[in-house]
């Protein structure tokens, strides 16, 4: 809950259909790009539910500022396991955290 409040909301103009991650009960928007130096990742996102937004904040903090090569090495599942949050990644949760992680990895593989 607190983490969700700490993550700033996306302006509505960035909540586009292209940024929407499908396959979740909640809506999740994700933008991922390289910063001005073209080295490090910048990720912004939002969700219409507090819990997913809070989990999303954790995911974003794992990847932000890394180079794409470093980011590819991240095992978000293992990180969630250590945080005791792995149940939120189960497919039946339908909350899209799994989809967020998979989408990030998918985008990384395009760099």
């Amino acid at each position, binding site marked *: *809950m607190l983490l969700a409040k700490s993550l700033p909301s996306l302006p509505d103009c960035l909540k586009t259909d292209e940024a929407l991650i499908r396959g979740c*009960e*909640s809506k999740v928007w994700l933008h991922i790009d390289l910063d001005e130096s073209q080295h490090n990742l910048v990720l912004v996102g939002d969700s*219409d*539910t*507090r*819990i*997913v937004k809070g989990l999303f904040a954790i995911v974003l903090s794992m990847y932000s500022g890394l180079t794409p090569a470093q980011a590819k090495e991240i095992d978000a599942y293992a990180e969630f396991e250590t945080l005791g949050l792995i149940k939120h990644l189960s497919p039946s949760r339908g*909350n899209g955290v799994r989809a967020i992680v998979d989408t990030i990895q998918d985008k990384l593989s395009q760099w």
Partner: protein
Amino acid sequence: MNNIAELRHDFPLLTRAVGDQPLIYLDSGATSQKPQCVIDEINDFYSKNNSNVHRGLHSLSESATSKYEQVRDKLAKYLAVSSQEIVWTSGATESLNIIASGITQSLSSNDIILISALEHHANIVPWQQAAQLSGASIHIMPIDKYGVLDLPNALDMITRLKPAVVACTHASNTLGNITDIKRIIGTANQVNATTVIDGTQALMHLRPNLSELKCDFYVGSAHKALGPTGLGFLFGKYDKLNALPVFKTGGEMIDTVSFSKTTYRNAPAKFEPGTPNISGVLGFGAALDYLNAIDIARLKEYEQTLFKYCLSQLQEIPGIIIYGDMQYNIGTISFNYREEHHYDIATLLNSYGVALRSGHHCTQPLISELGIQGTLRVSLAFYNSHADIDTFITALKNSIELIEG
């Protein structure tokens, strides 16, 4: 006669925990829990009596066949119809598909299919398919802003549009509303419309008497009435049922087969190809025995008391918005808290051991008519207690505090 409040002890699953909290099961609309006798019956079948039905002369098969057919009689009696009018299916969804696809061939582009705005996707999508293939058009019987069917409007539409088909739910899975299907069927019969009633949610709570309701078709799923999953039924008035074309084909349903031509048996056999869900049927038989032993008037009274109690407790929480018919209801309450996403509250409630459903409940058109994204849904059954509701309300208040905190 049994005390209804004691019956929960017959349901072993209700004693389990979720994490370190006792389970509070408020999701009977999704599936009912099973009494021990149903579990025992299935277990007995596989450990003592397993054999196929309608084949073989050996005693095992004969006894399985006769027990299997007795359950058809039991369900027929429960619904006050005759056994040959009952077809076993894999569930309400398949039953509705058999009816809609069967009726498609007799529809043309002049025909109208009338459905209500309350329907489950299972009573929408097969009709869309029928409309697409036949050119018929679909019209919707509307609801008011609370989600209650506008009955005068619905009756007027039936009289005015003279639809070929009127398909309507007996009780809404999302809102719990009990529809006045007696008047809908009565009016539909005056214009010779084929009436298809989705009784999936009504079967256990209302014990429908179909010879009084006089509908052409009525469907349901065993798992929502104490029985196992994977089994449902289709009731059809015999002439209408037997006139439907076959849906799936194969063994058991046939009269004679040669390589050039096959003739089919009459209903119900013509709709039951292949080896049926024998253990499911036997388990459902035990469920029907169990339900029949409960006085229906007392069951309804108990469920209504629980419903009214839960409703009044919810109404006392500021910011709770409740949808649906609060008077004629099977004991299902859909609600939201202010603008909060149902997902957050359902997830928090789960951590208190409270199992309820959140989302659109397979009724997306209804949810969008109500102008919302989804709801939280409490669906009660006679095996719930006042204490369940107290625990739920406390958990809900705590969840709200966490969100607002």
